[in-house]
């Protein structure tokens, strides 16, 4: 088996990995009973271990270096296939879209935390700012709803500027405390603010394009699909955009400067890197991405309330980044899928999910600090084919 894998071209190995992942995801999403879900989780753990042992994961990740575009396209196709399989079912589509939007938000957090080392424990607050922007503007203003989505990101980034000064001036624990305070204040602010709906929250209108409302499921080849299909596709588009931009950022001189700032501020300063500017850029860009994801999320749920954007939700976003691997976009998406879907499928752990996630985060930090899919060494350009074996 190992010999077969090693002879497989990396691109084929990647296709095989995505194919197996797709089949597994379809089977997993259709399970209802706790026993079946737990057995499948156990199976996944064993299968992932085996895939590591026979070299499939290594081989597939080579392809991510030599053919980054093709591998990203495969990922997109896998998501499209999943969406198509569940096109008529509300719940699986809602879950898929949620995974993709959480993954997008976690990618934003990755820019701040994974690359630049700027901690942000207020991720859910910026997600919420995006969602509340949708609530206030979609259908209630003259702005076309599609424009509200980027605006949600913009407003999150601008409000984030309030935090820039303390976050950039302080380090480590102090920056963490500042963002935790913001996270807690944000929820309290929403609860006492009647124009924003108070503790009950408010409803959010659907995204609409000319002649196309996201509130109705489109009829495709005579099949009436779920209205969540619109949101799942839009979420995939948003995730794809964020993924491409984050990758480009990482594989650029700016990405290098962000890494240098995280790893050694003194050396960075001595080599001309403007530390404050780098941190501000990362913080603002990250919040922008988180806000856009939040704006779409709010419209998809059709309802926003302060309890959806608490400090605990911020911790979930941080957990996704840590679980996937700091600075690893593929890892972030995988971790988002695990963290979002598992509690939904396993009703038994729903109550204890925060406890469970804290245990998982501690385990990761102790035993596998580089995360599930560790970040690869930066290659600015696709790796030449003849170098792949090295």
């Amino acid at each position: 088996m190992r010999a077969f894998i090693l002879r497989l071209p990396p691109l084929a190995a990647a296709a095989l990995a995505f194919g197996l992942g797709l089949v597994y995801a379809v089977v997993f999403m259709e399970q209802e009973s706790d026993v079946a879900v737990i057995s499948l989780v156990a199976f996944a753990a064993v299968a992932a271990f085996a895939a590591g042992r026979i070299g499939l994961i290594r081989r597939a990740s080579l392809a991510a270096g030599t053919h980054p575009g093709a591998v990203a396209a495969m990922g997109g196709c896998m998501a499209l296939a999943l969406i198509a399989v569940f096109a008529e079912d509300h719940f699986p589509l809602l879950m898929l879209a949620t995974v993709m939007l959480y993954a997008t938000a976690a990618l934003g957090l990755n820019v701040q935390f994974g690359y630049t080392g700027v901690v942000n424990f207020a991720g859910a607050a910026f997600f919420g700012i995006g969602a509340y922007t949708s609530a206030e503007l979609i259908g209630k203003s003259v702005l076309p709803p599609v424009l509200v989505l980027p605006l949600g990101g913009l407003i999150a980034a601008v409000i984030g500027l309030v935090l820039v000064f303390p976050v950039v001036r302080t380090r480590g624990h102090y920056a963490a405390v500042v963002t935790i305070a913001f996270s807690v204040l944000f929820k309290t602010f929403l609860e006492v603010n009647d124009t924003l709906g108070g503790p009950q929250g408010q409803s959010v209108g659907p995204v609409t394009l000319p002649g196309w409302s996201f509130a109705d499921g489109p009829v495709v080849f005579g099949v009436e699909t779920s209205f969540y299909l619109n949101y799942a596709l839009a979420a995939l588009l948003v995730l794809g955009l964020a993924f491409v931009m984050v990758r480009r950022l990482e594989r650029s001189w700016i990405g290098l400067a962000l890494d240098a700032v995280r790893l050694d501020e003194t050396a960075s300063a001595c080599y001309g890197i403007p530390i404050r500017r780098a941190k501000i850029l990362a913080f603002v860009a990250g919040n922008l991405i988180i806000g856009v994801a939040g704006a779409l999320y709010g419209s998809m749920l059709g309802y926003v309330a302060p309890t959806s954007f608490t400090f605990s939700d911020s911790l979930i976003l941080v957990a996704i980044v840590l679980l996937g691997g700091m600075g690893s976009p593929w890892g972030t998406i995988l971790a988002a899928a695990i963290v979002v879907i598992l509690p939904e499928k396993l009703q038994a752990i729903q109550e204890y999910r925060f406890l469970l996630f804290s245990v998982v985060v501690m385990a990761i930090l102790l035993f596998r600090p580089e995360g599930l899919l560790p970040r690869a060494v930066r290659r600015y350009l696709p790796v030449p084919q003849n170098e792949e074996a090295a």
Partner: protein
Amino acid sequence: MMQTTDAAPAMEAAVPATPGPLLDIEALSKSFGGVRALNDVSFCLGRGEILGLIGPNGSGKTTSFNVLTGLYRPDGGKVLFDGGNITGNAPQAVYRAGIARTFQRSRLCLELSIFDNIMVGNHARLNQGLIFNLFNRKAFRLEVESALEEATALAASFSPFLAERMFAPVGALPMIERRRIEICRALISRPKLLLLDEPSAGMTHEETHQLMDDILAVRDRQGGLSIIIIEHEMGVIERVSDSCVVLNYGEKIAEGSYQDVASDRQVQEAYLGSA
């Protein structure tokens, strides 16, 4: 933007912008609480010269580097560099003026590749524009290719071993290779002045001499590069330095050629203790 040079590391001979010494330090002082780490220290460095900065532990050598590069703000005195006053400038501005340094304890980004670490030192010459980096990937590609060529050639002049694995993480390399990378990082931006803080720390006698040969070779190619070197290994100082400055308890106690300062009574006392 990268300059489009033909042969990658063919260093242009620096033409003096202004006459006079490259670096002129006047009465520099720095205290930490009650400790006077630097007290009224003055010295000059001519273009193309190598100056050895020596003295016992805690005599203010590294502090003077830290003040020079803007990590510490001096309490008094002036630093004139290449005709401009850089006293109290931020580290970033000092680097842009043309001063690059290495650190006593290696400060490389261990999880980044050799190429990444060298490119950190090239910050001023790489296009940092957001639009360029994110959207103009074709032009970015060209810049990466020429930067890689240049960095590989520079690394090869120190060690073919490094040049062969530009995308290997630095953390896995032995100490001497890390030192070489640090020096490449300092040299890639073609500084006018290179500050070497104890390049021999953690290396064998042999390795140190090899490293110094490499540095001298680079200096010969890059006409006009001046160097200040902090070093405990006196053999190195004797071999490479044009002149020496000796510090003790933050004060300059001697200055001159290596032979002069080595035979100075005060210097001998500082090193051996007054008998």
